[in-house]
């Protein structure tokens, strides 16, 4: 057991856990933030995606001991995020979700993409979303919603 100081969604947190515990389980079980999902535990599905130091990261394979001072952003913070809320609104507007279990991770990947690349091409979308599995396969609407969010962001920037 060791104690770690984390910054999650701008809030300082302290947890005492085994150093090998993946960040995913620290978020879900120590901090009771269950919006970040467990899907595979081997970084193969993207349901656990968070932003670590601004980079979309699979939290299921990051031991808490390696997080250090990097700020953590989770899906719970996206409603207040300048890009996140546009993405969430586009998701609702386009009725993207089905079972919804992967969608928090999908949205985290999209927000990271749009922050780095406000007008992603078809290829950019496939590249950055390529590791986010949706077993319902809602990919058609994910593509549409990403384009809509990108457009909304552009219009907002112009205003």
């Amino acid at each position: 057991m060791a104690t770690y100081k984390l910054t999650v969604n701008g809030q300082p947190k302290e947890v005492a856990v085994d150093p090998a515990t993946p960040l995913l389980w620290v978020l879900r079980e120590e901090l009771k933030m269950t919006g970040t999902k467990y899907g595979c535990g081997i970084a193969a599905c993207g349901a656990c995606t968070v932003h670590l130091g601004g980079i979309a990261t699979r939290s299921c394979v990051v031991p808490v001991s390696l997080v250090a001072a990097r700020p953590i952003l989770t899906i719970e913070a996206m409603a207040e995020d300048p890009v996140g809320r546009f993405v969430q609104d586009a998701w609702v507007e386009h009725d993207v979700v089905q079972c919804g279990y992967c969608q928090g991770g999908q949205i985290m990947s999209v927000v990271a993409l749009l922050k780095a690349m406000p007008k992603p091409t078809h290829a950019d979308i496939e590249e950055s979303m390529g590791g986010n599995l949706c077993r319902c396969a809602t990919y058609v609407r994910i593509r549409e919603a990403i384009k809509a969010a990108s457009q909304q962001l552009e219009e907002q920037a112009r205003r």
Partner: protein
Amino acid sequence: MSAATRLTNNLLLGRRTFLRVSATVAGGLIVSLHFDLPLLAQEARRADSPPKVDPPNAFVEIRPDGKIVIMVNRLEFGQGIQTALPMILAEEMDADWSQVIAELAPAADVYKDPLYGFQMVGSSSSISHSFQQYRELGARARAMLVAAAAQRWSVPPAQCRTEASVVHGPGGQAARYAELAEAAAKQAVPATVPLKDPSRFRLIGRGIRRLDSRSKCDGSLKFGLDLDLPGMKTAMVARPPVFGARVNHFDDRDARRIPGVHDVFEIPLVRGTGVAVLADRFWAAKQARDGLKIDWDVSAVEHPDSARLLAKYRDLARTPGKVAASRGNEKKIDTFDASDRIVAEYDFPYLAHTPMEPLNTTIRFDGDRAEAWAGSQFQTADQAAIADVLGLKPEQVTFHTVMAGGGFGRRATPDSHVAREAATIAKRFRGTPVKLVWPREDDVQGGYYRPMHVHRVEIGVGPDGMPLAWRHVIVGQSITAGTPFESLIVKDGVDSTAVEGTIDTLYDIPNFHVSAHHPTVNVPVLWWRSVGHAHSAFVMETLVDELATRAKADPVAYRRKLLKADAKKLRAALDLMDQKSATWRTTLPPGHAAGIACHEGFGTAVACAVDVSIENERPRIHRVTIAVGLGLAVNPLGVESQFQAGVGFGLTQLMAKGAITLKDGRVEQRNFDGYTPPYIVDAPIAVDVHIVPSSEAPSGSGEPPVPVISPAVVNALTRLTGRRYRSLPLVTV
């Protein structure tokens, strides 16, 4: 049910008790309408059986703030029923849709499927079975609210009208449903109620967005795996490496050293035995479970092996099985020369469902009662199984239906093996909520797969290129043998879930013979979204395409010619698909090809055209046009969504790593690295969905997207490469 916010005083409700007035813990009045089972299910209930204890607020609750809570008698796991059923009830009730809240109903008699008498989701039956039920529920609620208003104003009810949760009287009076609810609860329940003329529908037939979107986009929705109860522990089980094997002995010293691990013990499983670990947290449980040193006795069980099974199945396919369908002359096929005969052999591997949310069930056993939380497709069976393990009656188990992250059939297990495991562990820790989790590896390796199949088809082709004789042998395990469903589904030795989509083909083939072999194999099998239709439609639609090519005919025109005269629904879908895709199909860029497939199953007819090229040695699906005939589309937006995504799910069987294989009894894949479902690059880039206009009774849209897509894609690939693809998965193109 948010039981904490309501007084659930477990009243013994009579058969015709419909309305309940209950109090919130905060003291405010809640008036709720309680409806009993529709007629058919009531008749099924024995007259001498004691009245059941049903939860209050069975279907509709009108809150003082105007919110209307509608209970959904099905699991929501992506299919959108949590929006569609409330739409139907709200339509007839004239409820203000913006105030509607949907809740998933717990296990209870009132929530059983009105036709099956069993609470479940499956066979795309939710809308078709509950359409009338929810319309009548809404109409009764409305009639009682109107009666209350008419009484208040001393006017005839017939002179009142309703709109958006308000009753309007003839003299300009108006009263909100919320203020009428208490008086409405005292009204007699009308035995019969008139239903709206469809021309007056305000919700049904309109594209309505899902009610659960926002909470699924902001992380607030709690799935079963997200449950966090006071004192809860996480359980995991080490299961045998070969199905049904048993623990000889185990060394748990390392496991017990992990902080947070409470107990390690052997448990009986539905198949064999295992070692359970109970810990404070998931991570400790996983580390401990994975670190167990277990000596298994695998000697007493069969060691299935995919390669050996394939060889055996191919041999079996060359011999006639139990007759599943027979029309015309069975021997006709033998009169055709090799030049007029197609002989095709197909094989399909085991497939796992791998819903995104790993399997889990939480149970707290309190001695004389228990509480369970599960995303279950079979609430009635799972509740009974938990009760059985705990030595309780089903009604002593409060069973909460929790939103599930996908399922595709995996949460509909006739043997309730996950529920039984969870109950077995919970029984040992009285008073402690135990959350049993199947990590992804357990899910991939744990069986309950779509069965492996071989199809062998011989077709005698007439001089006009049309099939005159068809002999079809299907080999695959029976899904229902040995389950309570066997007597309903297995007829004359044939499991209909293995031959559906073949025996009921809508193609007019004069001498048509289908038979089936159901070998017994030590691999647990289960229905996988669209069940038999996914492999059957693949065989039927690739062969019909081959016949069209051989006849040098247009694949759409050939199908039209071959369809039975009375295949109206499928013909209409085929025509609409043709009309909507003709332009792009005839103007494809070089390197692209169109593929066609059509199929009817679960009462829904689907036709599909795909635009495919080959990229990185894989099919690239640029576009899909779907036409669907499903009667009246309750929520066209939901139907569109199911089809746009459901075709992507169907592509699982074409993925290069879309197979579960066994070697000497052991499953060779462990996780999404070895068993890989479709990602964004594998799915169609665009899917346009067209619904055949209809006012007929609605059928479902959960299963029907799956069967058509794989044959359509493969038919396009064949046009590009000249190869036939008869062995899945599609390892090479």
